[in-house]
């Protein structure tokens, strides 16, 4: 596996810091342990990729602990039978507007909380942050009823209801994710120097311009981190799409997986190909924007 070679290269690399050159037995034990844990952690994913690349007939005849039967047919079949193209598109329709709207609305609230020191700000921050932590299932009963009551014009949703529409899913995701972003962004904005606003006020800048032209450009690192994280979270969202959607071909890709299993029920190779396809966007985000992803997660926990 390529992972082992990566480790070996970095261990014996000539550019390693000189302080760490000594490999005591204790340190070797430590590396051994960490390599073992890392490989164990990667194994389920590696196994899914491996299974997805083998033909069902071969593994059915020879068992999964065997070698051979390499093919990419599973991907072709999975993509076609499960209409992955449509489901990926649905995920885009939901994720992109939801993330943009979340960041916009959350940054507005965060700006007001950070910019002014009203007594109510603490309450406001609490109301938003706590909303993000409530268990979704606890709100399901009234929301389900609400969604089946609120009408939408037909050009917005062919169900003519908030239920079974992209709009409903976008709104509920925004409402839930706003809290986390308000929390992170307000902390970030509070750390900006206050002189900026005084200078802007001397220049006669309105509140909107202070928000849009002074604060927002300075928040780019935090916004990038949050955007990365929120794309992953909303793309991965399973519960709301499962309960608030009905039409099979409107499901976003993560919750469509559950409907696929019926079609695939005896063919684990096909299931694994489907799983890998669903994982690819998040893995791409993870490897390309790892820095942002990690910072986003830890911004919420520390003062950043």
């Amino acid at each position, binding site marked *: 596996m390529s992972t082992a070679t990566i480790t070996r290269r970095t261990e014996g690399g000539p550019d390693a810091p000189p302080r760490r050159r000594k490999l005591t037995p204790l340190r070797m034990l430590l590396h051994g342990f960490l390599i073992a844990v890392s490989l164990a952690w990667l194994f389920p994913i590696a196994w899914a990729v491996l299974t997805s690349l083998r033909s069902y007939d071969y593994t059915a005849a020879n068992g999964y602990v065997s070698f051979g039967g390499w093919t990419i047919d599973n991907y072709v079949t999975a993509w076609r039978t499960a209409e992955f193209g449509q489901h990926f598109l649905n995920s885009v329709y939901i994720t992109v507007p939801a993330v943009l709207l979340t960041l916009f609305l959350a940054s507005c609230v965060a700006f007001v909380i950070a910019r002014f020191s009203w007594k109510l700000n603490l309450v406001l921050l609490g109301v*938003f942050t706590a909303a993000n932590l409530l268990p979704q299932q606890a709100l399901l009963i009234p929301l389900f009823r609400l969604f089946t009551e609120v009408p939408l014009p037909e050009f917005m949703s062919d169900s003519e209801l908030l239920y079974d529409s992209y709009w409903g899913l976008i709104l509920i995701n925004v409402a839930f994710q706003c809290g986390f972003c308000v929390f992170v962004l307000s902390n970030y904005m509070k750390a900006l120097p206050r002189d900026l606003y005084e200078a802007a006020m001397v220049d006669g800048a*309105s509140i909107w311009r202070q928000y849009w032209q002074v604060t927002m450009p300075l928040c780019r690192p935090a916004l990038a981190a949050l955007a990365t994280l929120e794309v992953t979270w909303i793309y991965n969202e*399973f519960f709301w799409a499962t309960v608030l959607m009905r039409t099979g071909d409107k499901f976003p890709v993560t919750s469509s997986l559950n409907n696929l299993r019926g079609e695939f029920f005896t063919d684990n190779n096909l299931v694994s190909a489907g799983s890998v396809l669903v994982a690819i966007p998040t893995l791409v985000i993870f490897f390309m924007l790892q820095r942002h992803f990690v910072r986003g997660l830890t911004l919420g926990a520390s003062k950043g």
Partner: protein
Amino acid sequence: MSDLPLIQADRAVPPPATTTSTGGRRRRLRLLSRTDRVVITLMVLVPLLLVTGFVWLPAAATVLLSATNWDGIGPLNEIEFVGARNYSDVVNIYPPFVPAVQHNLLWLAALFVVATPFGMFLAVLLDKELRGSRFYQTALYLPVVLSLALIGFVWQLLYSRDQGLINAVFGSNIDWYGDSNVNIWAVMIASGWRHVGYIMLLYLAGLKGVDPSLREAAAVDGASERRAFFRVVFPVMRPINIIVLVVTVIESLRAFDLVWVVNKGRNGLELISALVTQNVVGEASRIGFGSALATIMLVVSLIFITIYLATVMRENRE
């Protein structure tokens, strides 16, 4: 907005009658113009309405509904209050309730006693600036980017009775997801697999924030590494510890996706969250039951959310 902002504007200056933002440059600091007030109100009100309408009002409605006999279909004006009857029914005549509570507690215990300390342990090891640390970290938190629903499918390749790796390697014949004696453990392992990486990430950030001079001082005093960690480093990470505690409790309360993709939370995989959902979208819609269950979830989560808020707000004020 009725209350005046406590900005650092000169309060002695009377507010100009109708100054708009296009009023040109003024050398003087002003209080907020009318446009600014409208803008501020909108900036807060729109998101606030969204969160109130979609999160807080439904939460309140859940609590109210738990004291009624509403069937979920009939008109709202025929609702009758039945007091605590739903709660006593849930406890006394609803067989999946007790297993669900047990499973939720077991889930919490497994994450809290095994996955969380292991994640912390790995963070401590990785904090030593080892070579290859990046590789280790990436491998460990890779599962964090996957959805729990997807994780259910990935682990099925190991757990399946006829096609799974575990049975193939050990020659066993257990349906790991289907057998009600073992399936809760199987899904908890899959969930722990993801949780460890998340906790490691949080502690790694926490450890980076610990003042290095503290550790040096402990080393000068001759404290062993383990002693220094438990006596010095761990206590100063108190905010992170509380956040991790709350994250763990909330995660185990919200656990849902994994059991839902396996078998919709039946036959050994009952969880409170799954029971609520079954009572709403399932074949038998029992709103009173469902709301009583949901209210229990709400109360437990609100206790820990309060602890969380108290911690982070204190942190922020310092």
